[in-house]
């Protein structure tokens, strides 16, 4: 019997649960020798080469490069001697059971067809929620939730009648165990307990050292209530001694209650979701702005436009985005949508609140066209006449609070975009000159907020570096 060996997804460290084949260095039919690199495997933490530990031939390749992440232990390929027959290989594959139980369910599936070793395929389609097939009694909502969140229901003890699994049971199973923050016992004076006061009144009295036995109750059935006790809580003393100024008597301070209007509701919901669901990280840089300020003056005259600093930043951003397409993305579930052009949204304060109209394909616009576009959008925003199309989508946002003197700030990403640039004001700062002296420079603060699910630190940093160099050397914007 020829030596047939499985090549499975390795487990690097106790935390690794799955990996993706980033690249195959061999293909079906190739012979390889010990020490030869077989493939690159990427995990959540690292990308690593896998080298052959023995000589053999790649008889079957079951998982292609660039596909879905596979659980640790998944059969990726079958290596064997050339003498092994195809029938033996087939039998081996059919009989294979991965050691790791996480893969057990998948092993029950029919063996996947061998993937062709193709170069970098397009991004894999997002996985549909795995259907759960079970005989257990389970409510429809519970089943939906379990499928959507990939919860294993076999371990759940159903709390419904006859052990039926409820939505709440699944919800509980999803959540991490969190030991409660305990506050422990409280003092209980038997004498005080005998006095007919409500528990809340007792707590307030204990906190302020008030003697309950001195009180008459006005609560139900003559009980001492919270109000009776609060009446005795000493108020802070009024005027400081010796100042001779009259007491300040506060008047009414009742709020005007303004319910969220439609736009604010939407903004509130979307930004809350963004803050909760997007793992933001922040990259900060300051760019030298003297060249930009000077260029703007002359370019505006030459082009006859009134481009603002922000317009230049929009242009620079758009150019940088096109050079760094992995930042010019939208994130949808587990899909990254890479756009060829930059639709840059600008944050505009309107009478109805914050809006983010989009300058479409800003990379293809000249600065005066950008200036006109932003002007038009700002005017529409002020008049409350922005259309939904003008605000839908975008691949990136620029938010500028420099006009208020803000030096730097962190903006919240507008989903489905992958990042947002927060621009501060231009400040004069002293810098050391080459000859050890001091000169003054204009600097502008930039903070890039990045969605770490889709864009890595390096990508964001590289983009920001490009942006900074475009700002510092703005002639390149007209190239």
């Amino acid at each position, binding site marked *: 019997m020829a030596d047939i060996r499985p090549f499975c997804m390795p487990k690097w460290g106790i935390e690794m649960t799955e990996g993706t084949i980033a690249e195959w260095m061999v293909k079906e039919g190739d012979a390889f020798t010990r020490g030869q690199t077989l493939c690159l495997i990427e995990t959540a933490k690292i990308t690593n080469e896998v080298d052959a530990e023995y000589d053999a031939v790649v008889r079957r390749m079951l998982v292609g490069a660039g596909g879905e992440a596979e659980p640790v232990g998944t059969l990726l390929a079958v290596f064997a001697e050339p003498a092994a027959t195809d029938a033996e290989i087939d039998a081996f594959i059919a009989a294979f059971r991965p050691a790791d139980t996480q893969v057990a369910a998948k092993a029950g599936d029919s063996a996947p067809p061998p993937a062709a070793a193709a170069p970098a395929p397009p991004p894999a389609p997002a996985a549909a929620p795995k259907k759960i097939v079970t005989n257990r009694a389970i409510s429809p909502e519970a089943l939906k939730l379990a499928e959507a969140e990939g919860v294993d229901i076999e371990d759940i003890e159903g709390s419904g009648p006859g052990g039926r699994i409820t939505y709440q049971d699944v919800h509980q199973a999803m959540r991490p165990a969190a030991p409660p923050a305990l*506050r422990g016992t*409280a003092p*209980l004076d038997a004498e005080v307990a005998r006095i007919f006061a409500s528990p809340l009144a007792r707590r307030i009295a204990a906190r302020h050292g008030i003697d309950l036995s001195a009180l008459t109750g006005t609560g139900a*059935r003559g009980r001492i209530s919270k109000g009776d006790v609060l009446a005795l809580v000493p108020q802070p003393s009024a005027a400081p001694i010796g100042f001779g100024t009259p007491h300040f008597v506060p008047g009414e301070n009742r709020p005007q209650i303004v319910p969220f209007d439609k736009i604010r509701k939407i903004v509130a919901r979307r930004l809350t979701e963004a803050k909760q669901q997007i793992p933001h990280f922040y990259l900060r840089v300051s760019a030298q702005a003297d060249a930009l300020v000077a260029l703007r003056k002359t370019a505006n005259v030459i082009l006859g436009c009134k481009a603002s600093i922000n317009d230049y930043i929009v242009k620079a951003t758009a150019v940088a985005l096109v050079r760094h397409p992995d930042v010019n993305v939208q994130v949808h579930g587990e899909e990254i949508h890479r756009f060829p052009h930059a639709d840059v949204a600008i944050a505009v304060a309107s009478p109805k609140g914050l809006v983010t109209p989009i300058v479409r394909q800003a990379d293809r616009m000249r600065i005066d066209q950008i200036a006109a576009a932003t002007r038009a959008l700002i005017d529409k925003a002020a008049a409350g006449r922005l259309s939904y199309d003008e605000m839908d989508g975008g691949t990136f946002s620029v938010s500028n609070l420099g006009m208020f003197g803000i030096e730097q700030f962190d903006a919240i990403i507008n989903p489905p975009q992958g990042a947002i640039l927060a621009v501060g004001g231009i400040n004069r700062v002293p810098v050391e000159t080459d000859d050890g002296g001091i000169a003054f420079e204009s600097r502008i603060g930039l903070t890039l907020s990045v969605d770490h699910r889709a864009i890595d630190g390096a990508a964001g940093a590289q983009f920001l570096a490009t942006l900074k160099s475009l700002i510092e050397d703005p002639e390149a914007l007209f190239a």
Partner: protein
Amino acid sequence: MAKMMYREAVVSTIAEEMERDERVVMLGEDIVGGMGTAGGPEAIGGIWSTSTGLFGKFGKNRVIDTPISESAIIGAAAGLALAGKRPIAELMFADFIGVSLDQIWNQIAKFRYMFGGKTKCPAVIRMAYGAGYNAAAQHSQSVHQILTGFPGLKVVMPSTPADVKGLLRTAIRDDDPVIFLEHKALYGMSGEVPDGDFTIPFGHARLSRAGEDVTIVSSGLLLGFCEKVADKLAAEGIGCDVIDLRTTSPLDEEAIIDSVEVTGRLVVVDEAPPRCGLAGDICAMVAEKAFASLKAPPLAITPPHTPIPFARELESAYLPSTDKIEAAVRKVLGWR
């Protein structure tokens, strides 16, 4: 302060009140015992020794032994009350409300209301309830939830001798009809009872243990189980408010809500069956009025929905045990 047993608190309070107000009379089966026998009166003084000596003190006109006729006993209490007396009628076992329910439910509970508020029916109906003596299905039941469900009655369930005294005084002096439920497994319980003419108002629960992590609500025999659990958990740094309801009608809603607003977690421990029950009533009330404070669903710990079984181990399995109560407290603490 004096140390006395639960049953002693009952009989001493009745004696004091009969002394204080000559309108107070007592009637029931064998509350004297021995009537019409060779042994003569006072053969027993109540099968729970809760009327010992009363016949000797107050005579046959005020301490009336009756035949076994629960409807007639309770009905007579109704008539006595309407005629201006303050009767204390005794049902030997709470389970016997079955054979007297019309007089409790359709008559005593409703007189004041039906007659336009123009009369009062100051009757006290005492009865021994609860499991723990293997008295099986027809002599071990809890009836507070049935009777609380009848508008017009006040329902009282003391869990200590001190509370017996304070609450029974209030019951006898109350002009409304009162059902006074004595847990038969507590009759031998000893406790400190304050001196003097103190009363405990209805609708005022007792805070038996204080803590800020879990609220436990109970009454009667199970209250003691909850105290044991709370003390055990205190050693682990878990603080429990243990609330002794004392009366289910009126119910001290305020105490329960106030406590849950601090702890966010509720466990109700009750001896009656689960369906249409007090525990569910309290959990629902808390879910409605303190939903925003809850960190976990409110839990009702009751016996199963079965009649009460006879064998020792079966009755133990039937009643909520300290283990079950502790598990429930840990469950709400561990809620995610």
